[in-house]
């Protein structure tokens, strides 16, 4: 269950193609992609993503392992970038493979809820009028209770 934390961009199409290739017993692959979105009023120059080297990979792997105990998963892929990203850039992706789509969808949903609140990344929005750290949302923390 590969987990990659990197500053370099990745090719979502190539990653999904590789993830799907050669599987004989997985009928379903679900993917989620996160993209840098501009601020409501526009003007975001960049998003800077800080992370905790070592703990990031470990935390994401733990979340993926937990998903694999709860659902019948054949495989999980998680890629998350760090560093400065601009609007429209791909931040991260998760992919899940399962025999049937119910497990693939549920596991991807679970992975994203946990990645939002339990993966040690911190986002800073930088614009002409200054920089500010994105605050964690109560909704994201609350989402964990549904699992």
């Amino acid at each position, binding site marked *: 269950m590969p987990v990659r934390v990197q500053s370099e961009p990745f090719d979502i199409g190539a990653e999904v193609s590789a993830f799907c290739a050669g599987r004989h017993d997985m009928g379903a692959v679900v993917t989620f992609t996160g993209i840098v979105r501009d601020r409501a009023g526009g003007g975001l120059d960049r998003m800077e993503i*800080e992370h905790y080297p070592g703990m990031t990979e470990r935390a994401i792997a733990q979340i993926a392992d937990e998903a694999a105990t709860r659902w019948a998963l054949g495989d999980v892929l998680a890629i*998350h970038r760090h560093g400065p990203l601009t609007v429209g850039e791909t931040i*991260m992706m998760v992919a899940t493979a399962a025999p049937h789509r119910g497990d693939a969808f549920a596991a991807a949903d679970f992975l994203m809820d946990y990645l*939002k609140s339990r993966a*040690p990344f911190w986002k800073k929005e930088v614009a002409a009028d200054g920089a500010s750290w994105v605050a*964690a949302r109560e909704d994201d923390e609350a989402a964990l209770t549904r699992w």
Partner: protein
Amino acid sequence: MTLNVLYFAWVRERIGLPRETVETGAETVAGLIDELRDREERYVAAFADLSALRVAVDQELRDFDAPLAQAREVAFFPPMTGG
């Protein structure tokens, strides 16, 4: 004991360091925070509101009453915003 103490995001900005080596006699994370606060104003500023902070001991999320015995690394940061 000797600990690596790491700071992330605005905690790092308020203290002015990403990490430092600390000699401590504290038995818990809370005790370590008390020791750090006693140092300088910038630590008081960083630890002013513990409800706004989270802590990891040896890369596992813990509570502030977590014991430090055998710990090697403690990290302080705001709630995570991954994904």
